[in-house]
């Protein structure tokens, strides 16, 4: 079984968040639809949860905590999530929002993988908080879709 530290998992998640942000920014810059541009531009600028969550860790403890080793191989940021998404040319807001919910699932899977490991309460708090943030994000995306404005 491969081994990775908490820091490694967080780096994984951070890379994935950056990829998400770039992905939405890419759609925003290429779409001909103003609604999709507005929506993805917003989504690209609201993908920074890790920094906020990490800032809650006690700085004196943080270095020690993130060095904690785990015995599993993260799967979220290996790009297969993006392969699942095949947005057609000229995709509408509803399709983009469905894709965003699917992509959030990748991070949710990663955080759940950590939460079943033998981890300290501080690390558990951090990942539960990240998990909740993603779930909250998914709920917001579904609400935006239901409102059918874009």
């Amino acid at each position, binding site marked *: 079984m491969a081994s990775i530290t908490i820091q490694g998992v967080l780096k994984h998640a951070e890379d994935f968040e950056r990829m998400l942000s770039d992905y939405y920014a890419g759609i925003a810059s290429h779409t001909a639809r*103003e*609604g999709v541009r*507005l*929506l993805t*531009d*917003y*989504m690209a600028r609201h993908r920074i949860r890790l920094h*906020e*969550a990490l*800032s*809650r860790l006690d700085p004196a403890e943080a270095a020690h905590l993130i060095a904690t080793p785990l015995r599993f191989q993260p799967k979220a940021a290996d790009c297969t999530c993006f392969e699942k998404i095949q947005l057609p040319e000229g995709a509408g807001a509803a399709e983009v929002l469905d894709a965003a919910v699917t992509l959030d699932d990748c991070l949710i899977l990663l955080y759940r993988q950590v939460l079943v490991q033998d981890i300290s309460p501080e690390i*558990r*708090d*951090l990942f*539960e*908080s990240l998990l*909740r*943030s993603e*779930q*909250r994000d998914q*709920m*917001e995306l579904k*609400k*935006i879709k*239901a*409102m*059918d*404005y*874009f």
Partner: protein
Amino acid sequence: MIYLIAIGVFAGLLLALAALIAVAERVLVNYGICNVDINAGERPLDVDGGQTLLSALYTNKLFIPSACGGKGSCGFCKVTVLEGGGPVLPTETPYLSRKEVRSGLRLACQVKIRQNIRIRVPDDMLNVKMFTASVAGTREVTHDIKEIRFALHDPPEISHRPGQYVQVQAPSPDGPVFRAYSISSPTYEKNEVELNVRLVPNGIGSTYLHNLKEGDPVTFTGPYGEFVLNEDPAVEIICVGGGCGMAPMKNIIYSLYSRWPDRQCWLFFGCRSARDVFYLQEFQALARKHPSFHVFYALSDPVGPQEQWDGEAGFIHLSVDKHLEAGVRRQAFLCGPPPMIEAVTRVLAEKGLRPQDIFYDKF
């Protein structure tokens, strides 16, 4: 097969352990009666320890807004805990900014009362009531939005400010849940509450409300909301709504013109197509009566060959940008999806509105 049995036994053990802990906590851990001090003695309560703060407040008819029934998934039930709340839980942190945590804000549904506790809630919250009412009438205003009017029974009158909302109790398989809806009826209508409800596929609240028939009983709590209309009639009022974000605007506009018939007010409303347009004729009639009222509706989708439209085209923030001059004293109220709110806020800031003059209701 052996693996399945092993998994089954393991799961069974975990369940038994969880049940044992729950029973032990109930039997062995007795927190006794705890005091909840609200707003420095304004409303002290003695409650059974061990329950959540939200539940204790609700039992004592202090109705903090909550949409998820205390599951910690809506983030609505924020109160300031000054003492005795214990540490902030990871279930709360996604809903609280660092500034809010520093100021003592907590989710009432996640705070368990284990000792005396001191909290602070906005004064408005102490006046929130639970209403029983019945459906006085319904009207389809678009293909998916219904106007629903409730006749109030107990208490028979509501006192609210323009832009406030109520939380309607809807049944669900997991027990009753509350869903927030802005009041669309003006403040001078004391015996009725009117809502605009868009049907959300599989939505618990909207499905329940859309299925209501005249005479059906309903329960809701309210009014909630922090919007306070500027009392200076020289300050222009800007209302911007998108999608189905019309209800608070209708309330604000009609309430405003009942008090200040000459006050400058602008309504910008954006939707996708002509079939989503509602209340346009009513507002045009109001504008003829009050020339200081300006109405702009915009459609973001291209107008279809069968549709007739002589209003604005494009997203609503573009209309706001086009029609408002900079440098005028204004207060704005926005209602719509978060990206719309962000786009409109940016335009209003460019027109000189300060952040404290912009209120919004994101959904």
